[in-house]
């Protein structure tokens, strides 16, 4: 688990570093416009990823609610019900 966590941090850092230059103010009009386009482009890509991930998670939640409900014939008692602390 910790390896996945560390790997995620490294990947996230590698993704963020190239975008840092966008933070600094543009000095000429042309550059300003370019950076504005870059921000749009970055944001569009982020939104695409975010909505795909969001759709998968929302779908997973709907499925979970149906699959793990108490009244589902496949539902089994969890190990924590009688002995553990909930």
């Amino acid at each position, binding site marked *: 688990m910790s390896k996945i966590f560390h790997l995620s941090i490294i990947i996230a850092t590698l993704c963020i570093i190239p975008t840092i230059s966008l933070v600094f103010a543009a000095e000429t009009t042309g550059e300003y416009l370019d950076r504005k386009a870059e921000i749009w482009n970055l944001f569009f890509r982020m939104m695409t990823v975010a909505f795909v991930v969001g759709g998968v998670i929302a779908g997973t939640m709907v499925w979970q609610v149906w699959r793990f409900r108490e009244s589902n014939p496949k539902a089994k*008692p969890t190990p924590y019900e009688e002995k553990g602390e909930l």
Partner: protein
Amino acid sequence: MVLALAKARPVWQIMFSTHHTDVGLLYLVFSLLAMFIGGAMAIALRVELFAPGIQLIEDSMSYNRLFTAHGTTMIFLFLLPSASAVGNYLVPIMVRYKDMAYPKLNAIAFWMIPPAAALVWLGMADFGWYANPPYSVISAPAPAAEMWIFGLKVLGVSSILSSVNFVVTILKCKHPDMSLGKVPLLAWSFLSSSIIVLAAMPTFAAALLMLLTDRLGATGFFNPAMGGDPIAYQHLFWFTFHPEVYVLVIPAIGMMYEIIPRFSRRPIFSHSSGVAAFVILSLVAFASWAHHMYATGMSFTEKTVFMIGTLAAVPASAMHVFNFLATMWNGRIKFATPMMWAVGGIALFFAAGAGGVVNSAMPLDFITHDSYWVVGHFHLFVFGTIAFGTIGFVYYLFPYITGRMYSEKWGIVHFILAFVGACITFFTQHILGLFGMPRRIYDYPEIDSWISMNALISVGAMIILVGMVIFLANMIYSTAKGKPANMEDPFGLGGKYYYPYAQRNPHH
């Protein structure tokens, strides 16, 4: 556990008590009263906007007064006190201490709220709950504006006292055997939100004082005619009130962390990731305030910084959602009323978060700025996530407070009406914003799409109203005549609670 009402006691004994469950009960009753008052105001606003022209409210000034009181009531008199109610009930028990660290201060913090509410409700200021200058400095009528400023000042002090109490109770009074890592996530949520209040609230306290002296003519901090800068107020305001959003949502997430494991019959998937997410949210809460102000002429650099700062909240929010999903996985979920509210709250939290990403992105913010999109986003977040978590937790606490069970059937009817009503009302408001309707307007032109969407939004609000009336009737009837609850396992979940009924703190 707490059982505040099982044995009849004189009302004054509860009112003048400093015991944490009594103060919690006072907070709860007051916050629910404020919710119904604020809700009635919202219904009046929606009746007015049902169609173009005058429907109910005679003039724009009355409309402005009403939406100011509605916003102030819901945020400061319903959501914040309802979170304090839950914290007062459970935090001392969770950290295994006999009461809050400063019981008298706790009672004082509560009793500051009713006078402040009276100032807000009797004054009826008209400048919105954000009191933006220059209008609030130059033109807002007295004494309503002064009453609102004093009311908010008192509420701010109450919040700070309450937060000091939570921080000291959790950090200094927890049982010596209990490390901070073992403190339950609900208590962690109160620790995080209290620290945010302590860091953020003084800024607004200073802004209110500056606003007051500006109104008195002694200073001109925000008055352009005296060389002041109205935008400075917005910076001070949002420095407090963007973090305040997290102050409201973090306890609601903490409440979901109580409900979801119990009703899934599984322990929380990852306690440490929940703690980490609370800490990260507390930090990034202060990195995003200026995304409310992109349209004020900020530089490209500033806007980019605040856009990234706002988006930094996404991973921490996602950690909570993943934690909830992983907890429910392989569980045997009982969809009793509290669980339905919690799961509904998570679903709407996700939708509200997606809208927040759009708001925070400066290119898209200019399209949605000051439109009904923002009203929809804010309400989806505040009602769909925070109030859903809170109301679910009220159902969860009900047997512990009263010793009786509420009607499960009517609880579920309440949830369905609220969920459907929230989707109709707040999603439609998003679309209405994209169709160009500005927020905070008293009347609107006869544009077909605006008319039909406003009518739909008002119908959604009425559906929520019906649900809330059922909620009120259910609470009152069940408190008096509900079935006696099995206090060891009121929801029939099996297993043991880690803070059983027998652990209640004796009265003092």
